[in-house]
C-alpha cells in the first residue's frame, strides 16, 4: 500500500544527508491529471511529493540527462549522490545504466516504489475531458479511483492503465537502497502477444503501417531525450560531420532515425514506455522496441536491466550464442 507519509519522511531524511545533493520524485502537476518531476533540494519540499497512478515519468532519465558543466577552477566537482525515486520499470533503467557504466553506484541513492501500474494519460483525458483543477488518483485493487471536481469515480484498471503495465512482470524495483512499502503482485506475464500480431503481417502491410507512422514524425527528439538509455554525449543524430541522418523530416530520414534509435536500444530497452508516452504525434514506438526485446530474449535468453553485475548484452559473447538468423 502506498504510504505517502512514509515516502515524505524518508525523502526528508534522505535529502538532509550530507552526501545527497538532491532528490528526484514526483509532484502534482499544474492542472488536471498531470504530474511533474519534483527536484527536491531541502526537506521543506517533501510535502509536495506524491505517488499515484499518474506518476508515469521515469525519473532515472535525469540521472544521465544532467548537463555536465566544466568545474570552475579551484572548485571540486560535486560528488554527492543523487537520490531518485523509482518504480519497477524505472529501477531497471538504473540497473541498465549501472551495467553500462553510464552512472556510478556510489553516486545514486535509489528509493524504490512498488507500483500497481500507471495510467495512459490519453485514455484518461479522453474519459474525463476538460478538467483543469488537479485531480487525485489512487489504486484500489483492480480499480482506479479518481477524485474529480464533480465527485469520486471508480474505473476498472484495464480501461485506463498504460499498455506497458498490463503485461508488466517487474512492478517491484529490482534494486534499491530502500523500498518504501510492500511488494505488489505482477500484473502480467510479459508475453509478447502484441509483437506476434505485428509479426504475422506481411512485409507490405508492415511497411504501410510504419510508413504512415514515421511520416508523422516531427523529429522533436522527445523520444530520444526522455529515454533513460539514450545518453550518448555525441548522438549520431546530431552529428554533422559526418552527417548520418539529414535533418529534413521526411519518410526516408524519419525511418532511418527511428530504426537507428530502435536498434541502438536492442538489448538495452527496459520497456518503461516513456518514448511512446511522450511522442506528440502518437507513434507506437514500443512496438519496435518490444520486437527487438523479444528477439533478444528468445535468441539470447537475455533481459536488460535486471542484474547490475551482468555484462552489457552487446559486449558479451557466449560460444553457444545462436547465429542461425545471421545472414
Amino acid at each position: 500500500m502506498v504510504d505517502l507519509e512514509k515516502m515524505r519522511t524518508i525523502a526528508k531524511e534522505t535529502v538532509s544527508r550530507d552526501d545527497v545533493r538532491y532528490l528526484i520524485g514526483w509532484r502534482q502537476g499544474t492542472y488536471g491529471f498531470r504530474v511533474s518531476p519534483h527536484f527536491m533540494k531541502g526537506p521543506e519540499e517533501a510535502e509536495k511529493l506524491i505517488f499515484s497512478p499518474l506518476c508515469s515519468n521515469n525519473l532515472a532519465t535525469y540521472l544521465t540527462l544532467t548537463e555536465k558543466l566544466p568545474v570552475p577552477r579551484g572548485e571540486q566537482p560535486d560528488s554527492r549522490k543523487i537520490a531518485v525515486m523509482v518504480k519497477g520499470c524505472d529501477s531497471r533503467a538504473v540497473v541498465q545504466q549501472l551495467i553500462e557504466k553510464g552512472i556510478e553506484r556510489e553516486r545514486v541513492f535509489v528509493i524504490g516504489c512498488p507500483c500497481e501500474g500507471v495510467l495512459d494519460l490519453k485514455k484518461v483525458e479522453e474519459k474525463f475531458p476538460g478538467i483543469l483543477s488537479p485531480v487525485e488518483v489512487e489504486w484500489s485493487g483492480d480499480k482506479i479511483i479518481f477524485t474529480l471536481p464533480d465527485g469520486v469515480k471508480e474505473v476498472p484498471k484495464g480501461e485506463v492503465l498504460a499498455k506497458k503495465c498490463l503485461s508488466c512482470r517487474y512492478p517491484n524495483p529490482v534494486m534499491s537502497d530502500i523500498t518504501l512499502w510492500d511488494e505488489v503482485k505482477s500484473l502480467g506475464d510479459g508475453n509478447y502477444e502484441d509483437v506476434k500480431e505485428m509479426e504475422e503481417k506481411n512485409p507490405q502491410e508492415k511497411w504501410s503501417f510504419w510508413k504512415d507512422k514515421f511520416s508523422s514524425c516531427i523529429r522533436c527528439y522527445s523520444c530520444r531525450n526522455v529515454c533513460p538509455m539514450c545518453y550518448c554525449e555525441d548522438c549520431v543524430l546530431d552529428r554533422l560531420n559526418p552527417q548520418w541522418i539529414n535533418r529534413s523530416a521526411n519518410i526516408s530520414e524519419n525511418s532511418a532515425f527511428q530504426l537507428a534509435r530502435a536498434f541502438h536500444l536492442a538489448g538495452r530497452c527496459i520497456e518503461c514506455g516513456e518514448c511512446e508516452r511522450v511522442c506528440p504525434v502518437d507513434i507506437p514506438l514500443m512496438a519496435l522496441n518490444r520486437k527487438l526485446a523479444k528477439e533478444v530474449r528468445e535468441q539470447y535468453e537475455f533481459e536488460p536491466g535486471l542484474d547490475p553485475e551482468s555484462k552489457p548484452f552487446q559486449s558479451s559473447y557466449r560460444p553457444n550464442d545462436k547465429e542461425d538468423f545471421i545472414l
Partner: protein
Amino acid sequence: MDSMKLSKDKLNSFVAILAEQKQLYMPQAEGETLKYSPVNAKVQPDLVFSNTAVPAKSVVFPQVETLFRYEVEKTDIKMPAGEEERVLLGVRPCDARAMSIVDNLFSWDVDDPYYLGKREKTIVVGLACQKPGVNCFCSSVGGGPASTEGLDVLLTDLGESFLVKPLTEKGEKLCQAAGEIFEEASSDDLNSAEKLHQEAAALISRSIETGGIPEKLPGLWESGIWKEVSNACLGCGICTFLCPTCHCFDIQDEIEGFEGRRCRMWDSCMFGEYTLHTSGHNPRPTRRERTRNRINHKYNYFVQKFDVIACVGCGRCISSCPVNIDIIEILQQVKEAQ
C-alpha cells in the same frame, strides 16, 4: 461585404468550390495526428475539432522547405516553382493570429520570399472556437476565441449553418466566387454568432495578466526561477515545433545521387546544437539558458522589436509537454519573482 450564411448541407459544395479554384488545406488526420494537409474536392469536410496538433503555420512555414536545387559539382541554381494559390479552411483564430505575428519577423528589414510568397497567396478561412481546450489562454495575450486578426474570412458554427463573415478583400473575393450557395444572414444570426463568441470566451478557464512581464524579464536574468522551471526539461523540441509563433530554422544542404538541394527546416532553441559554435563553445550551455531564452524571446525580445507578445495562448506547449512545464506557471513565477 455583409456576413452571409452557409447551410451545413452545402458545406460539401463550398469545399468543392474552394478546392476547384485553389489548393485547399484542411485539418486531416495523419496517423492519429491532426494537421493541415492538402485535400481535393471530394474530401468530407469535418470542422469539429478542438485544435490541430500541428499548428497552421506548417502551411506557410513548412517543416522542411527547399530554397533551391542544384546538380552536384555544377554551379547552376534552380529555383523552386512559384507558389500556388491556396485556401486554409478551418483555422483557429489563435493560429491565424500567430501568422500575423510571425509576418512581422519575416517582413522585418529583409523580406523572406518563401514565407511571404506563401502568405500572399494564402486565404485564411477561420472557424471561431467554441470549445476552448483546458490550456487555452488566448484572451490573456490579446486574442480571443473569435479573434479575426490574420483571418480573411471567419466562420461561426450556428448549429445548422455557418455564419460567414468576410474580413478582407481577399476574403470577399473568395466569398463572391462561391456566391450562389450562401444565404442572407439575418440580424438574429449575427446576434447568435455574437452570443456564441461570448460564451466561448467565458469558457476559457486559464489566464495570466501579462501586463508588466516584458518589462520585468530583463531584471530576472540571473534569477533562480530559470533553473527551477527547467529542472525537469528534457530539451526536446515539442514546445517549439508545435508552437504557432516559433519560427526559427536551420539551413542544410542535402544530396541524393547527383541532385542537391539547400533547404531550411524547423529548428528549436531548446536543442543544444542550436547555438553550439564550431569551437565547441556554447553560449547557452544548459536547459536553463535555453528555457530563459525561449520565454524571453516570446515575452521580451519580440515585444521590444515588434510591440507584440510572440505567444497566442493556444496552450499546445503546455498540453504536449511530457514533463508538465507550463508556460502560464512560468509567467506566474516571473510575476511573483523579486
